[in-house]
């Protein structure tokens, strides 16, 4: 007790505080950097993370929450933040032409320079001061062969060979020396050209900048943003731009790229629900999406369970089991591609086998029904080892005395399976089935790798395929075309999320009811 009330300085406490300190320093520097980049949402979330972790690990009172603190922090960062960000995106017009924030767009535009009509174009040669390494002079040669000398903060003056410390000229008429300065050869300026490019030579308003390896020109800032009137003025043309729906626009509708991201409220959701073109064959896609998820889980589970029951009692089951689990460790990507080639109508091994047996084979890649069947079969192949492992384990948990008792009562093997094994098993695995359903509902990989959602649906207002599920359709909509529309994509994924959430909730309720009955 005494020790606790005093100052419990043990080596482990010091180590812990040191680690927390190191962690905080690392994250705080990251936040600093993010703030510099203007990424406020992520900085805020990281701020929350840092507070949680620091409090949990430095306050003795909160020591019971240490491990919980880590998971809460991780969940905040990797689950909560993406969700919030998706919701935020769905209310913006983020996408092609509207990627930047307004601040970034203005910054970008204000960087642009132009050569005013009174401006001059020159070729240049640089001279570096012998005293300080960041002081330079430029020897300029205008198009009419007049020559000038300009420096940092000194006005541009006509200059000629032999006057004002300018030394003798080389065969191109460029002075070899200038008093106090050393001439830089072209090849030596390559490495420092961007340093030179940042320098404003001469005095305002006649600022001369380097615009290339040999070109320089009088330049001026082209666009100026006025935050009071929220307008952008083009110094070259005099046009005034106002921000309209995420892009600077003149009164007569002339747009100035790049655009920026602005809030559009629920407009993306409206677009999705109001435009029959955007929804495409949505009903068809949703019904296939359900069928796909349900059938995949059903057949995968049925096959896994069947094998588990079948080999539960067989001799040599260890070897068979090992063989059966093989599809599991093979990456799904590889399996799916192999299946795709096996089912290729021109030289797929399975297709020629079918042709030699039946004389004909269905077109597994182009016939809508057969493509769907192929997808279910492949998913069965991919998922049965999982259900096999799960079922084998669960079967061990079923008390054998119940089965023995049933056998004594005269129940045959089928009856024992249906009346005793299955109900008990379902009780154990139903949460896994629900999870598997939710996973398959959004199982983009299989659909996209196998056939990209094809064969296409004839008569669809925008491209969509017979095997497209919602998520692959969203992908087509938001990413497949060059004109990405992240705002719309985000709003559809929110709709999708609500779908899956509602279904999962319903299923969990249903399984709970079932469990109650069983209990």
């Amino acid at each position, binding site marked *: 007790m005494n020790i606790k009330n005093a100052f419990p300085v043990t080596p482990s406490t010091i180590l812990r505080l040191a680690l927390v300190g190191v962690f905080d320093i690392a994250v705080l520097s990251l936040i600093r950097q993010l703030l510099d980049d203007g990424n406020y949402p992520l900085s805020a979330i990281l701020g929350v993370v840092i507070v949680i972790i620091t409090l949990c690990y430095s306050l003795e009172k909160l020591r019971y929450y240490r491990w919980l603190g880590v998971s809460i922090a991780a969940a905040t960062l990797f689950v909560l933040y993406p969700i919030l960000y998706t919701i935020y995106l769905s209310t913006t017009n983020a996408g092609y032409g509207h990627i930047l924030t307004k601040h970034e767009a203005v910054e970008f535009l204000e960087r642009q320079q132009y050569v005013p009509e009174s401006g001059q174009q020159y070729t240049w040669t640089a001279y570096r001061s012998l005293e300080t390494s960041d002081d330079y002079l430029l020897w300029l040669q205008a198009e009419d062969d007049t020559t000038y000398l300009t420096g940092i903060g000194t006005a541009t003056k006509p200059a000629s060979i032999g006057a004002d410390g300018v030394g003798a000229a080389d065969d191109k008429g460029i002075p070899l020396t200038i008093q106090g300065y050393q001439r830089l050869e072209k090849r030596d300026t390559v490495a420092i050209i961007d340093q030179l490019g940042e320098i404003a030579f001469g005095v305002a308003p006649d600022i001369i900048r380097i615009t290339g390896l040999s070109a320089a020109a009088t330049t001026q800032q082209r666009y100026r943003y006025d935050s009071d009137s929220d307008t952008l003025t083009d110094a070259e043309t005099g046009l005034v731009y106002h921000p309209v729906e995420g892009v600077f626009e003149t009164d007569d509708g002339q747009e100035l790229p*790049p655009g920026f991201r602005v809030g559009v409220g629920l407009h993306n959701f409206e677009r999705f629900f109001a435009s029959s073109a955007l929804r495409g064959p949505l009903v068809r896609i949703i019904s296939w999406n359900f069928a796909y998820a349900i059938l995949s889980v059903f057949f995968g589970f049925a096959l896994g369970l069947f094998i588990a029951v079948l080999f539960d009692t067989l001799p040599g089951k260890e070897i068979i089991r090992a063989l059966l689990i093989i599809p599991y460790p093979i990456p799904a990507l590889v399996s799916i591609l192999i299946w795709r080639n096996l089912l290729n*109508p021109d030289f797929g091994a399975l297709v020629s086998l079918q042709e030699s047996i039946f004389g004909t084979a269905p077109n597994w890649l182009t016939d809508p029904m057969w493509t769907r069947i192929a997808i279910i079969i492949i998913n069965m192949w991919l998922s049965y080892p999982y259900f096999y492992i799960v079922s084998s384990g669960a079967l061990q948990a079923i008390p054998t005395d119940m089965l023995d008792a049933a056998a004594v009562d005269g129940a045959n093997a089928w009856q024992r399976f249906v009346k005793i094994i299955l109900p008990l098993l379902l009780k154990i695995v139903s949460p896994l089935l629900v999870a598997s359903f939710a996973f398959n509902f959004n199982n983009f990989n299989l659909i996209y790798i196998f056939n990209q959602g094809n064969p296409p649906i004839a008569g669809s207002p925008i491209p969509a395929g017979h095997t497209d599920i919602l998520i692959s359709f969203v992908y087509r909509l938001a990413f497949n075309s060059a004109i990405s529309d992240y705002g719309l994509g985000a709003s559809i994924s929110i709709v999708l999320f609500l779908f899956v959430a509602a279904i999962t909730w319903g299923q969990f309720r249903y399984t709970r009811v079932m469990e109650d009955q069983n209990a």
Partner: protein
Amino acid sequence: MKRFVFLVVLIVLAVNLPLSAAPKVVAQTPTLTIWTDDQRLPVLTELSKAFTEEYGVEVVVEPQGTENTMNTMTQGAATGEGPDIFTIPHDNMGRLVDTGVVAPIDLGDKAELFLPSALEAFTYNGELYGVPFAVENVALFRNVDLVPEAPATWAEAAEIGRQLVDEGTVEYAFAFPDLGYNYYPVYTAFSGYIFGRGEDGNYTADDLGMDSEGMIAGADWANTLIRDGYASENLDWEAAHVLFESGQAPFIITGPWAVDRFKTNEVPYAISAFPAAAEDGEPGAPFIGVQGFMVNAGSENLLLAQTFLTEFIATDEAMQYIFDNDPRPSAWVATFEATDDPDMRGFSEAGANGQAMPAIPAMGFVWDAWESAGLLITQGELTPGEALTQAAEQIRTQITESE
């Protein structure tokens, strides 16, 4: 609590000290970052070593796929992400320029040393945005054991193919990787087009030719072969190439990327220009894709990057080196004319009347719809007319929706 406050003070100090107290770093030599694809990676790595030796500027060359480069550039470049220089097919240019992330390039006198068509492909709104180095287009490949002379018309090609199938020499008369990009020379032979050009000579999304008569006539040519059983009902890029290299199809339309695999499989091929729709007609024109270097407008080394391209890449040595290590018809006139490689000659002939691939953003809507139409035609689900009309509607819908 005391301890907690102490910790916070310490941390705040620690975070601020090194950044604020550190003396301003005196300008150091810059590093150029270049993103390119896998084929060009070794070439550019070698080239940049020479640049480093000559100018003392470090160059880092990193492999990146086109898609990745485009995503980084269109999403992050304005906030300082991305390379200083990247190589990209020119048809991505519209999106890059519209997003404002690439800087114009002034080639000065050197412009004359490039193929005019290659420079034109990299010109957008009247400004040059890229330094082209290779010109890519598809050409007609034929199996010379089966077809010694290149056909002059598409009807003739079909006839040769049909005969070979009837004799039992081959399985199919023609191998189709798709009915879109690769098949475009057939559409154009029948005077089909994707986007028309506006008054200013630029492609315009207002004139979509997907459902034009020429396109439908072009698709009919393949459709007839397929319906008669002389071409596969399965439209698959990989499968089509396998058919050609295994001698099961006498013709295929594909690009320089397929040359290596045909050589490996020792299929006796020849590359030629495209047949015409009729004896006196114009030969089919492929899309021309130009590979080039572009400069990130948000780069801290903007002038250096531009200098690297204009002074170092736009030279005989560099262009020849790029060509030697990854043979594609060069965009540099001297290199282009110096080659006597028959494959390169074949591609150049096929691309002589080629059309620059539209770089307008609306092209992004074309591919998916076009691919779907091709599948629907080959599967016999829709007639060419129906399928292409539908594709045109889909593209128009998406253009309208995106506005």
